[in-house]
């Protein structure tokens, strides 16, 4: 293991089985006997090799269904490869969904604890970040009202404020750059830029190419489960736009 590698993907293949008629219930299983479900295998990622270095900010781009999000999920260890390996070095946080674990009946402040705890933070670590999170969310006095009384914008702002303050070594982001009003979006973007300049490793899946272009220094274009192009972000995006147009 080289010290400067953050994420290493070696010869990794992932396929999903699609059951054309899956026996979901016990009854169906019994009626049909225990024979195998008919299924079709759909290979989403085909022997991918990637190495992402510490401190890089990487954009994963590609058309819908090309396997970008699947790759991100594999890096997060939400799903596991069928072949090959995905290894990550350091504390990893993924922002695939904002507000995971929020409970509507609890206050914003309590939900900060719930949400941050899911990312593996301890009580002490959350205490230290609490003021920063509340300030970033701009919720003010509403922080002590139950989350169910929040508007959807307030909800997202709180969720993003928690997620962005987790301080991981590796941050995986899936298409969540558009949060809240213009003012808050700018703020989030500024925060991401700040993080990108630090030695945090960031991988972003996004279709907002302009934003990504400003943020990332490396682009990886995934096409039909394979790496089509890998290099400087602007070049990759330009090629991608050419192809799509």
């Amino acid at each position, binding site marked *: 293991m080289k010290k400067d590698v953050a994420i290493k993907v070696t010869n990794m293949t992932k396929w*999903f089985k699609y059951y054309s008629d899956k026996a*979901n*219930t*016990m*009854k169906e*299983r019994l009626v049909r006997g225990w024979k195998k479900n008919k299924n079709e295998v759909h290979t989403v990622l085909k022997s991918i090799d990637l190495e992402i270095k510490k401190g890089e900010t990487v954009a994963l781009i590609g058309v819908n269904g090309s396997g970008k999000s699947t790759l991100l*999920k594999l890096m*997060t*260890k*939400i*799903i*596991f490869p069928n072949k090959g390996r995905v290894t990550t070095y350091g504390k*990893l946080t*993924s922002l*695939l*969904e904002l507000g*995971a*674990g929020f*409970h509507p*009946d*609890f206050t914003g402040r309590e939900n900060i*604890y*719930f949400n*941050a*705890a*899911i*990312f*593996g*933070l*301890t*009580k002490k670590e*959350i205490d230290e970040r609490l003021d920063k999170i509340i300030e970033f969310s701009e919720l003010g006095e509403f922080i002590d009202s139950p989350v169910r009384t929040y508007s959807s914008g307030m909800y997202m702002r709180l969720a993003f404020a928690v997620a962005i303050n987790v301080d991981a070594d590796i941050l995986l982001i899936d298409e969540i750059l558009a949060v809240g009003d213009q003012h808050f979006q700018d703020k989030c973007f500024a925060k991401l830029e700040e993080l990108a300049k630090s030695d945090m490793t960031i991988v972003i899946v996004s279709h907002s190419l302009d934003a990504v272009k400003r943020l990332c220094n490396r682009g990886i274009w995934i096409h039909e489960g394979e790496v089509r192009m890998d290099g400087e972000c602007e070049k990759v995006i330009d090629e991608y736009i050419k192809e799509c147009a």
Partner: protein
Amino acid sequence: MKVFKELYQYREFLFTNVKKDIRGKYKASFLGVLWSFINPLLQVTVYAIVFPYLMRGQTIPNYLLFIICGIIPWTWFTMSMMNGTTCITNNGNLIKKVYFPREILPISSVTSGCVNFLISCLIILLFAIFTGSGITWHIIFLPLIMIVQYIFSLALVFLTSAINVYIKDVEYMINFIINLLFYATPILYPASMFDGTKFAFIFKLNPFAYLVEAYRNIFYAHEIPGMKQLLGLLGVGLLILIVCYMLFKKLEKRFAEEI
């Protein structure tokens, strides 16, 4: 060892989960958390009224305390199994979107039941005092009995929660199985009632028969629980726990895809 390190890292998640389970469940109701104690008490009342009629003249001294010693621990088990079996499927959203050690969910189901039980022990103690039975030093064995019950419950929850992801029928079957087990455990009646009948073997095989017996030893009969059985149970429980945990780890790989 890596498992324990990771669980320790995520301890706050475990803690908030338990808190959410206990306080969140009844948050909207008027009586709040009290409901988790009122429910078993109401249950006890019903049994205490109805069952003496069914016992065919056999009387058990201090029957009220006798069944409370069985029902309160049983409530913990039922709660753990009900919440535990669906803990993975109900948190599908989290499983699909966030990485965390999956075993936290089953562990927190059993733990919140455990916390609930600890508070409910006050009810047992109150009844022990007011029915004139009293409290003796024997309750120092409570932690040991609880550990054994915790291990068995956790093992079962690991098993059912993981299988429930693949076969959704488990959560419906579990209802019936718990009900069946309730009557196969000497909660409402003493195990001695079946001495010499062909059903006596059930109590030999049912770990909860030993557990209820042990709870009764310390709260009701004021004697030292059978240590040989308890330690034996602990050993068997740990073994089952390890097997169920390994199965859980194997099945967890495809949780996000199957939910």
